[in-house]
């Protein structure tokens, strides 16, 4: 009798266990799904049909009233010369005379300056693929003058274009250059200092109050929200050190980011150093090597792959940071691409933030496309880190 009851109880407990296990598994699968949805959403937004309305029709402004298809290059040039503001015309001619330009270039000038298309409505990829009819109806009803065009928001012009008031032409060139220069400086500042600090803490520092204080301090810094680092950058780098950084410049941004990722680099490098077995250090010291010789020739090479991977992860984090850079003063409108560290700047995440905040679906599509570029960049960087690490491991084993 007892056995029967026990068996029943055990069976029930087992079933409960299995049920809960299922719950756990499904929650786990949920996490994987979320990632997929995230990616899917972005891709969905980056391609699709856009309804484009033109401010002017070609026929209305052309010299002889002909349509665009009927006009040859000479006619197009005539139209342009007729309608364009003299100053703009002169500027274009100075850059490259109109009659030397290809038709595609002429068309581009025509569109941008005279026809002035704007996106009145855009649809996502899913809608464009599967809701053609609904789109056609909507177009007919609300924007009869608009032309539907298939548009990939991810295109070469995205990479090459610079900031603009018009989502049709805006690009991320300035942002990419800004990100690139900023990260380069961040790397050259944060890595040496971070690795150096870690070596001090792991290999040289005596076990006393000062060392413990420094260590605790680093852990605390790692938990400080990134926007606070932005405040630090604004106050110290942009204002107090304006003589050095010249204010809201790439240099200030890079220094702010360097300070931000410093704790991460230090902690990561410390972990890498800790993983090197003591026997290696003993072997070196027992041969009459000094501490630095031991570190330089044996300890660092033994964990260099881990240090590099950690460094790249830190840089990935810096690339994606937005809030501190907005606080430090990323530009909303760059007049020209940054060429020196003392230039105003913007970075890719900041650009995405600005576009997302603007009204209108077109800006959000653009932001989605820019996000794709950002993710590609980060993916590339992290893959590079993994390749680097594997290559280093192979060299060590050889």
């Amino acid at each position, binding site marked *: 009798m007892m056995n029967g009851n026990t068996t029943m109880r055990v069976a029930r407990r087992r079933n409960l266990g299995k049920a809960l296990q299922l719950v756990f598994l499904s929650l786990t699968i949920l996490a994987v799904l979320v990632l997929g949805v995230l990616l899917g959403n*972005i891709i969905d937004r980056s391609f699709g049909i856009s309804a484009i309305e033109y401010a002017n029709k070609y026929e209305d402004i052309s010299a002889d009233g002909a349509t665009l298809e009927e006009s040859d290059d000479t006619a197009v040039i005539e139209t342009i010369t007729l309608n364009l503001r003299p100053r703009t015309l002169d500027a274009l001619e100075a850059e490259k005379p109109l009659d030397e330009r290809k038709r595609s270039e002429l068309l581009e000038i025509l569109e941008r300056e005279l026809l002035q298309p704007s996106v009145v409505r855009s649809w996502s990829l899913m809608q464009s693929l599967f809701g053609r009819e609904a789109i056609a109806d909507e177009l007919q009803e609300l924007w009869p003058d608009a032309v539907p065009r298939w548009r990939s928001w991810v295109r070469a012009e995205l990479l090459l274009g610079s900031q603009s008031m018009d989502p049709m032409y805006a690009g991320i060139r300035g942002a990419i250059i800004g990100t690139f220069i900023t990260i380069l400086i961040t790397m050259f500042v944060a890595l040496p200092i971070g690795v150096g600090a870690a070596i001090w803490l792991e290999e*040289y520092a005596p076990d006393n109050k000062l060392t413990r204080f420094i260590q605790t*301090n680093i852990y605390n810094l790692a938990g400080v929200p990134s926007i*606070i680092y932005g405040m*630090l950058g604004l106050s110290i780098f942009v204002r107090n050190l304006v003589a050095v950084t010249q204010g809201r410049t790439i240099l200030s941004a890079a220094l702010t980011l360097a300070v931000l990722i*410093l704790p991460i680099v230090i902690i990561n490098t410390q972990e890498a150093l800790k993983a090197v077995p003591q026997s290696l250090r003993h072997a070196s010291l027992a041969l009459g090597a000094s501490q630095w010789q031991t570190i330089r020739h044996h300890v660092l090479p033994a964990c260099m792959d881990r240090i590099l991977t950690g460094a790249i992860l830190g840089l990935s984090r810096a690339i*994606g940071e937005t809030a501190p850079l907005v606080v430090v003063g990323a530009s909303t409108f760059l007049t020209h691409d940054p060429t020196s560290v003392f230039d105003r700047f913007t970075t890719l995440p900041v650009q995405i933030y600005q576009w997302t905040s603007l009204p209108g679906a077109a800006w959000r599509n653009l932001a989605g496309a820019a996000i794709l570029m950002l993710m590609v960049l980060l993916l590339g960087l992290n893959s590079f880190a993994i390749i680097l690490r594997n290559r280093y491991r192979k060299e060590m084993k050889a």
Partner: protein
Amino acid sequence: MDSIGMALRRRPKPVEQLIRALLFFCATVSVLTTIGIVWTLLSQSLLFFRQVNPFEFLTGTVWQPQIGEFGVLPLVTATLITSLISMLIALPVGMAIAIYLAEFATGKVRGILKPVLEVLAGVPTIVYGYFALTMVTPALRSVFGQETVGFYNMASAGIVMGILILPLVASMAEDALSAVPQSLRNAAWAMGATRLEVTFGVVIPSALSGILAAFILALSRAVGETMIVAIAAGAGPKFTLNPFAAAETMTGHIVRISGGDLSYDSIDYDSLFAIALLLFVITFGLNILSRKIVRRFGEASA
């Protein structure tokens, strides 16, 4: 000393000493950073508190600089609500994943899940913010109706923040669970307990300090999060407890104001630092608490 002694004698090694000094300097940069943060926040906030009563600051429910109202509570409640919503997602799901990884998962599942978690954790917050605005908000609006759920609302931001933070919870909790010695599990199994009973009855209580620490750190992260709330939660301080309404958090406010025209030494400029100081105190306090819990109770269960 004799000749052997002379050979063994200490010689000045300038290179060694120089390197030692350089490395020590690198370590002190971190201290300089902390000093910089504390000095910046304190000095600028002081300028603010000379003009605004700290008590009014901390208890006022209206933040409207134009009429001279600097009550920070609207920002604080928004921060609190978004953070709590994120905890509602991150804690249970994160724990579930941690339990699964630590106690049940096979090598293959781990091989997929851990990288996925790492990727989720590595996605820039701006991307999450975009996701909240373009995907979660419309979804919420279609489920609860467009009148209940605003275009900008705290719930979207909170939910997506939860997704952002759940890898952190999962990995820290998993570490805590894995640290529980296998001998404890063996003892429980030997008594005829099922796997689940072992997990909930023995392993989790044993790892409780680590798990709690993870939760508190996750909360700290949520409080300090900026971009998700800046994009999706709303622009404009509003004292409300309705999660479907728009409101501005402490971080969202700072980023919005500093992104616009801001003149140095204006009260608006100084007010940002006062808010940042409050934010710093809260997150710092949470971080310290988290570490203390691990130290005090972790040893008891070790």
